[in-house]
């Protein structure tokens, strides 16, 4: 069993890792054809993974409803929402799923009048949480924190039109902060993260890092 759970995945990871790493340096048509085949397999596998996720979601909420755990009523909405979306999606304005997607169907109505506003509402919570976090936690406790605060205030004001009305030099200073210190910090973190990513990738390709196979050695 260990051969199938451990050895074969490690061999696949090694062969594919080395092959795709070297593929980057080989412009020949054979290499490009290999890339095309691998990408098509990747898209196919990613598509099938959707079923695993849907099963997990429904299984979890079905168990909650069955056992009537506290809050099981919310779980019924999962099935209700998924159910009517699937029904109207397949109904396709009367043309059913064998024909191309129709315009102005109930499915479109639910998308524009339920999903879009719900998603936008969740995103808009950020504004409130940002203000709350700023008031509670942005403190000039140390000299570094003070510099950070001053920079944050300048950028917050300089990045909106009112900044130019408060002081004409606010927007250029804000731009300088974004283009120089911010970019320097971003580049530093990016270089470190990239080196870390290469090292982790090498560990995975050569079988040193095996956690992705499912725990243990």
């Amino acid at each position, binding site marked *: 069993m260990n051969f199938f759970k451990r050895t074969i995945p490690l061999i696949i990871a090694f062969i594919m890792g080395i092959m795709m790493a070297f593929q980057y340096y080989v412009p020949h048509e054979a290499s*490009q054809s290999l*890339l*095309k085949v691998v*990408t*098509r397999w*990747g*898209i196919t596998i*990613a*598509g099938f993974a959707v079923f695993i996720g849907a099963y997990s979601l429904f299984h979890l909420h079905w168990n909650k409803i069955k056992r009537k755990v506290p809050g099981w009523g919310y779980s019924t909405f999962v099935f209700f929402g998924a159910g009517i979306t699937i029904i109207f999606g397949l109904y396709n304005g009367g043309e059913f799923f064998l024909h*191309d*997607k129709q315009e102005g169907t109930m499915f*479109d109505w639910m*998308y*524009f009048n339920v*999903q*879009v*506003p*719900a*998603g*936008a509402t*969740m*995103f*808009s919570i950020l*504004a*409130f949480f*940002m*203000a*709350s976090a*700023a*008031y*509670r936690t*942005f*403190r*000039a406790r140390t000299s570094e924190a003070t510099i950070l*605060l001053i920079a*944050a*205030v300048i950028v*917050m*004001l300089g*990045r*909106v*039109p*009112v*900044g*130019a*009305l408060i002081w004409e030099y606010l927007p250029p200073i804000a*731009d300088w902060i*974004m*283009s120089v210190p*911010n*970019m320097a910090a*971003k*580049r530093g973190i*990016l270089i470190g993260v990239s080196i870390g990513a290469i090292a982790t990738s090498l560990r995975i390709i050569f079988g040193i890092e095996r956690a992705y196979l499912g725990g243990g050695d």
Partner: protein
Amino acid sequence: MERLLRIDRRIIFAFVAAAVTIPLLIKFDLPVPATKEVRGIYDKIDSLPEGSHVLIAFDYDPASKEELQPMAVALLHHCFKNNIKVVGMTLNPGGTGLADSAITEVGKEYGREYKEDYVFLGYKTGVELVMINMGENIYSAFPKDFSGNATADLPVLKGVQSLQDFDFVVDLASGSSIEAWIAFGKEKYNFDLGAGCTAVIGPDMYPFLQSKQIDGLMSGLKGAAEYETLIERKSSAVAGMSPQSVVHVLVVLFVIFGNFLYFMTGRKK
């Protein structure tokens, strides 16, 4: 003062709600001068001759609609006004409806014909994998468009075999797709790339601007407002600048007030 430091967060939420709502009711205009980052995209599209092909990737979901949809609409207005052929697609499944509605509504406003002047290819799963596929052969990546028409027969795609044949590609992203477009698209297939993103990931994109891996960047609602100003078509993004400015000032005042209370309570102790 201690009580003010530990104030119920709902009072802060109420202030923010008022700061957003009142400017929308008492309309006032604020000037929105365009920055050079946004000009980069505008100038590039303006320089394209009539009949050029521009690919717009609508890689955002409904949650980011308020920031990115105005960008998309402004871009589409600019392209259709300049008689540029627009090809739309998305790597985000939540974005298909938004992308389709934007491209269709703006196209109709200029009397453009679907399949002749613009097309929406739809959504494909796989992000980087789709980019590589499009880089080799766009028809194999999207054999049919969103409406089910065979892409090989579409007049709007005449002369376009792959990503290299597009005169400009713009990615409107709420996630990390811009970096993927740079690494798996521009680096491999060498085309001009512009980006639009939410304000939160805007700072992430500055290194790519400086290294000229992207020609221009629209960041957040302000980026969209600057583009609307450039195309002389002020709409929802410019209208959003007044509440955004007021909220920014409010947050700054909260920070200053919070620090004032912090130092005062500290001194008392």
